[in-house]
């Protein structure tokens, strides 16, 4: 029997016992996902390989991008399972839905056939719907919104895959698609799932208002988004590149990045904030996919290999950091960042939370910072192009939006970390999130510590994906930094464009800290907070922290400052969500009138309708 079946079956083990032994299923989930991650890692290192298993039209496989994305997703799922051990461990239905979501996510990645892919993709949407809607008391519309947009994604993928079959004559993933419209339809199907602007409610609505459990939020925001990116890359690498397609993705991505970060910073909901951050990060990754497609068209192998490597590093850092960020939200059941008082967490847990937050700020030397460097470096290189003016102009304009959005993510996660961990009450639940938080933080820190290894194994895979015979490893030594602790980028003419060394930055920080400590010793100068010369009374709130942006960007937030019943309050709105709701109301009104006029139960009109439809079909068939 082909050993790949083992990879398929492994996530089913916790699923099998989830309804009877929920907590045990979580422990088994940790083991199975850790095994999957380990297998992926060994495969990436070149010590293991799997052949494709075909059964009639269906096939599953584990090569190239599948391995990398299985590695990313499996590590995320470890955090999900560890968290679930401490979070509602006896809830049988939750255990079942988490296990089935994990299973479908993994199955999508190893599907090598578009029908199988679509089947598991749809299963993933259904499992997401179940995760949001399994509680009876919740509002009914968030799960339906999630499902509706999930179905929109499925519709595009179905149409795209049908066209794919007609164009290539194959149901196997990886066939060359020369028609850019087919690629566009397929990519849109994945993009809808990633919650890109203006459809970002796909991301935040179910998470923030759907009362989704935190473990479900991690699966939506980290795993499913990553799987959608996987789908994009699978088809982007096997399709004919097209500059319009590339530019469209860059522009869409940059808007998503900017608006995602703008809405994230003003969010006062502990899950909505990281969910909006996912919209931002999805935008960044889509931008890089656009750059990848564009440079593939111009046949600059070193550059698009570098960009593809960047996408993979970015996706890794995002998925792992975001998982840990969502674990932080479990610090209290109160979703309001402003009023919450979370459980007291240990020093290492707090350190882990800080690591995840700083990574999501996009600061070096952490993973998010490295991913951000790849994004900005790709944009700078593209912007410096004097041969491809359109791409250069788009890179400059979109890069400006991206930089603005990336900058805003710093106050966003400063707020998130400080207000989430700053105030605490002793609920006796110290261990509740301490363990998953510590594990998540350690994993995020591991990206920085083992970045040369990640860059190396990812680069080797990138070379295989781009069919480059000579592996292009973006590691070097320079200015006294030994190999392989320096990552470099390439310009359009293959010369080195720029470089970073996360290790050097870490050592610099550590050395500076040690030097300060050795000079200052244990002396600590404690200075009380100066509050104009009087005792401190009130504290700055998280709402106030972001309110300057609500005032400055009042047209974006549709900020409403009102005084009703003698009480002041301020509201902000997601302008895109309001537009969609308004549009839906117009459609509903139109449908209602249309129904009353045309399909109003009158038998005469109904017969007329059938006759018109019949004649129309006859005319279409005749010609």
């Amino acid at each position, binding site marked *: 029997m082909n050993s790949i079946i083992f990879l398929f079956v492994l996530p089913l083990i916790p699923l099998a016992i989830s309804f009877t032994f929920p907590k045990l299923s979580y422990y088994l989930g940790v083991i199975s996902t850790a095994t999957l991650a380990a297998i992926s890692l060994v495969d990436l290192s070149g010590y293991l390989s799997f052949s494709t298993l075909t059964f009639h039209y269906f096939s599953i496989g584990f090569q190239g991008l599948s391995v990398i994305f299985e590695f990313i997703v499996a590590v995320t799922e470890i955090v999900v399972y560890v968290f679930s051990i401490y979070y509602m461990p006896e809830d049988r239905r939750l255990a079942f839905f988490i296990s089935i979501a994990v299973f479908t996510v993994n199955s999508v990645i190893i599907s090598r056939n578009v029908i199988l892919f679509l089947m598991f993709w749809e299963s993933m949407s259904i499992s997401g719907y179940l995760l949001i809607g399994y509680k009876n008391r919740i509002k009914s519309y968030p799960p339906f919104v999630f499902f509706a947009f999930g179905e929109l994604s499925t519709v595009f993928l179905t149409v795209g895959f049908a066209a794919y079959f007609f164009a290539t004559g194959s149901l196997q993933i990886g066939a060359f698609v020369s028609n850019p419209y087919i690629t566009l339809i397929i990519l849109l199907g994945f993009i809808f799932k990633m919650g890109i602007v203006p459809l970002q409610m796909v991301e935040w609505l179910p998470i923030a208002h759907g009362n989704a459990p935190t473990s479900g939020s991690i699966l939506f925001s980290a795993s499913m988004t990553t799987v959608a990116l996987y789908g994009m890359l699978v088809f982007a690498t096997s399709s004919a590149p097209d500059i319009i397609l590339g530019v469209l993705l860059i522009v869409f991505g940059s808007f998503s990045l900017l608006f995602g970060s703008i809405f994230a910073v003003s969010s006062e909901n502990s899950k909505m904030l990281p969910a909006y951050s996912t919209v931002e990060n999805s935008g960044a990754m889509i931008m890089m996919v656009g750059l990848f497609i564009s440079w593939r068209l111009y046949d600059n192998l070193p550059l698009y290999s570098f960009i593809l490597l960047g996408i993979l590093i970015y996706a890794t850092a995002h998925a792992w950091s975001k998982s840990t960020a969502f674990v932080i939200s479990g610090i209290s059941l109160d979703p309001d960042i402003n009023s919450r008082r979370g459980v007291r967490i240990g020093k290492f847990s707090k350190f882990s939370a800080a690591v995840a937050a700083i990574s999501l700020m996009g600061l070096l030397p952490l993973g998010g910072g490295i991913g951000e460097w790849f994004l900005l470096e790709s944009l700078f290189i593209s912007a410096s192009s004097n041969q491809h003016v359109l791409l250069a102009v788009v890179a400059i304009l979109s890069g400006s939006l991206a930089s603005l959005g990336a900058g805003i993510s710093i106050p966003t996660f400063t707020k998130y970390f400080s207000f989430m961990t700053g105030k605490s009450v002793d609920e006796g639940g110290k261990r509740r999130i301490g363990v998953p938080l510590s594990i998540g933080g350690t994993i995020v820190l591991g990206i920085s510590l083992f970045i040369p290894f990640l860059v190396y194994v990812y680069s080797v895979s990138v070379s295989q994906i781009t069919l480059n015979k000579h592996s292009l490893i973006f590691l070097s030594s320079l200015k006294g930094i030994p190999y392989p602790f320096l990552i470099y980028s390439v310009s359009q003419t293959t010369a080195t464009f720029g470089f970073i060394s996360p290790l050097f930055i870490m050592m610099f920080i550590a050395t500076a800290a040690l030097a300060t400590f050795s000079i200052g010793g244990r002396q600590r100068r404690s200075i009380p907070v100066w509050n104009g*010369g009087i005792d401190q009374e*009130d504290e700055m709130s998280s*709402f*106030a922290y972001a309110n300057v942006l609500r005032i400055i960007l009042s047209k974006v937030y549709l900020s409403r*400052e009102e005084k009703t019943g003698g009480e*002041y309050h301020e509201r902000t709105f997601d302008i895109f969500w309001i537009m969609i709701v308004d549009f839906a109301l117009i459609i509903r009104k139109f449908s209602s009138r249309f129904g009353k006029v045309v399909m109003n139960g009158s038998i005469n009109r109904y017969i007329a309708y059938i006759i018109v439809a019949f004649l129309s079909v006859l005319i279409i068939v005749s010609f």
Partner: protein
Amino acid sequence: MMALDTVSGYFTRDGRSYCIIDSDREFKECTDDIIGTLDYSESFRRIYSHPVSGENVFKFNYGPSTGGMIETLDLKIYTYGERILSLDVLPGYKQRQIRIAGESKDLALLRIERLNGFHSFSYSTLFSSAVERMLEIPVSQEVRYARIILLEIERITSHIFKTARLCESASQNIASYALMGLRERLMRAIAEGTGHRYLFGVNKIGGLRRKIDLDRIVKVARGVVKEYVNIRNGLFVSRIFIDRIENTCRAEYSFARGPVLRAAGIRYDFRMHDPYYSGIDFTPVTQNGGDSLSRFLVFSEEVERSMEIIEKCMTPGERGNFLIPSHENEAYGIETPSGDARMVFSINNDHIGHIYLRTPSILNLEAFARGIRGNVKTDIPFALESFGIWVSELGDVA
């Protein structure tokens, strides 16, 4: 147009309440009910409390000792971040009590002119001229015009200082330093011409204590005002400066005093009613915006108007003595650089009896506390400096 019969003073004596109304020279008995209808009546007791509540609303502390504020005021900002929903002002961190009642006239004068060093001549003139009128002590026309000139010189120095402070708060540092240099030049001329840079000890009951070199002071003042106008015109074309003060802290309240009131379109200047200024052609400067820019426009133009008054007083046609006997129950007044101050007192056996002093800062602070609503926190310095509020004027004089 707001009513001009604003109650601008309120005090109690022997169990009875009295109020001062803008349109009347005399104070009148009034009931507490009437005072209770005034929504700013608490400000007469130096209470500036406007609490509000709401979702995410908290009190943000600004002051009493903090960057950007020259005066020791503690502002409690009700906000949900940046936007000032309401404001409490606690002025009590540096408050003085000056005891006048029971003291001799000369000692009372000495203390009153130290109430606010920057406006000392205004207060000493208010007290001296009031005593002179009560005791029917005539002063020469020469003294009268010298006092007017020095009052206007004090107004010019005060307005230049206010402009400099406004520039500093709006990060126009070069203009601020240049203006402070101008002010210093004028104050040195004042020191050389009068013996004291803050005009302490210049006034006495019945005249001036020293011979004043007015020519020297006025000569310097001409040059200073000319340069001031140049700097002001430069500020008019500074987009940054105008952006920061335009629409900032709209204070359109009839109880406000001086340039604050006139910037809201009210044509009220106590110099119009002041017997000292009778015969001097004078039109108050007004603006309609009510914001910091309007206040700046008013007091900056008043610098030129003051210079015009000074030029008229340098060549007075009148000679002889000057005396206008006081009315019964008169509430004496003077237009200080920050607005009119009103004073009520009696003299018993050559000693000062009960005394009540309502300074312009008492009411202007309430106007600031209300006007700043809706602005953002960073507007506070641009707003406050345009009001010319002095904490020393909020002290008790009894």
